């Protein structure tokens, strides 16, 4: 009997069956992930004025030097007129960024037809360039001097948040037109250590806006990457918030503080072109964006420094 069963002791192995075992490339592609364009969605967009050419765009500043109130102490006396000097604030479009790649005809024709390689990489390139614009806007932190809070060793607490809001309101900016922009590290590791931002006894019922929208982000929050509100001011997160020496340069901005303009050729903000190049016998794809960024109203911004060396607890 032993010999009869011995036949089954030598089953096929995967190696034996290698000729029949197939491999399948799934239609799922794990793409690169990007931040939402929270800064460009919020700041002043001058793109509409750039469609007919020009490189410099003027936004007259009447707030630095303003009219003054006189007192008519002697009735009938001649009035004293005011003539404050205007300040010419400008935005220059001078940044042209691109992503380009070339795929030869041989490779192109052999790539599985189920994959739209051009589209996948075009989407990725668009994400990269949108992030470049976001990073440029976030990089304007270095010009903020009027309202700067914290330093390289600051752990963001409620005091910093209230100081930032006070600074903004002290400039007579409407808080309803402002927004916070935090690095996710600061949002999760420091802001959420502040009990009054998440404890129901201080935030109030679940349908009242808090640092986290109704206990989770909700669909709207996911779309806009708006995490919630602090004292009624919307709060966004993005990793484009600049870091230097373990210090994140978070921002509280009025919408008039920073401006940008996109002047990419064609109708869109980002242009994608794919052409067949005979000289390379392949397809050349170029995705590009032309833009400029500027601080339009510096006192309408608050810099909130936060050290990544600390965790609030």
């Amino acid at each position, binding site marked *: 009997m032993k010999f009869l069963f011995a036949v089954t002791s030598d089953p096929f192995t995967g190696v034996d069956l290698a000729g029949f075992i197939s491999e399948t490339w799934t239609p799922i592609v794990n793409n690169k992930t990007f931040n939402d364009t929270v800064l460009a969605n919020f700041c002043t967009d001058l793109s509409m004025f750039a469609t007919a050419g020009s490189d410099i765009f003027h936004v007259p500043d009447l707030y630095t030097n303003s009219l003054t109130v006189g007192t008519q102490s002697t009735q009938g006396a001649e009035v004293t007129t005011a003539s404050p000097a205007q300040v010419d604030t400008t935005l220059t479009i001078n940044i042209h960024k691109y992503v380009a790649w070339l795929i030869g005809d041989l490779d192109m024709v052999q790539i599985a037809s189920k994959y739209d390689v051009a589209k996948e990489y075009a989407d990725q390139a668009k994400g990269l360039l949108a992030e470049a614009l976001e990073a*440029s806007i976030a990089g304007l932190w270095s010009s903020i001097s009027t309202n700067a809070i914290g330093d390289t060793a600051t752990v963001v607490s409620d005091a910093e948040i209230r100081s930032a809001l006070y600074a903004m309101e002290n400039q007579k900016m409407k808080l309803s037109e402002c927004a916070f922009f935090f690095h996710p590290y600061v949002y999760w590791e420091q802001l959420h250590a502040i009990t009054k931002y998440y404890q129901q*006894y201080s935030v109030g019922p679940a349908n009242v806006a808090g640092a986290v929208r109704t206990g989770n982000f909700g669909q709207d929050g996911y779309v806009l990457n708006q995490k919630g509100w602090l004292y009624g001011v919307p709060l966004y997160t993005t990793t484009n918030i600049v870091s230097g020496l373990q210090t994140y340069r978070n921002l509280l901005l009025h919408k008039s503080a920073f401006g940008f303009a996109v002047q990419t050729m064609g109708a869109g903000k980002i242009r994608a072109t794919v052409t067949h190049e005979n000289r390379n016998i392949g397809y050349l794809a170029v995705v590009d964006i032309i833009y400029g960024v500027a601080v339009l109203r510096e006192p309408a911004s608050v810099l909130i420094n936060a050290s990544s060396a600390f965790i609030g*607890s």
Partner: protein
Amino acid sequence: MHQVHLSDHNSKKLSTVNPHLWGFSVSWYNYFMEIKGDPKPLVASMSNRSDDIRQVFFFERTDGQIIACEELEAWNLYTRRPQILGRHQRVEFTLVGVGDGRIYRDALEKAREVGRTDIKQAQEILRKGQADELEACRGKLIRPRNMDKIGSEEAKNYVY
């Protein structure tokens, strides 16, 4: 006002006190309001993030303030790319020193040690670390690498 930390609240109060057992209805919202009192004061601890302290570029602004930044931002400032306050209020950035970050990194390690018991002192150590890093490299000027070269080794090696 009486203050109960969340952990205490969970372990003691919630397990032993159930207002529904008392025969009347109390919303949890009101219940928490009575128990919690003042918010817990902020307490910080040191992060164990093992960030690679990279080269640090110090720039001096027109108003005399010193800012520290990493190489990508330094390249943008160096090339005067940011549009600062328009043409007539332009703030100039002058590169005043480039450090390797070693002094700050040492300060960070020391702050981590001290921070276990004294966060305030740890913060002071970090502040001093940044000041010492600046003083040590003041006058040592190195041009930031060109971060605009797509596909270049410089751009490839930069970790955003």
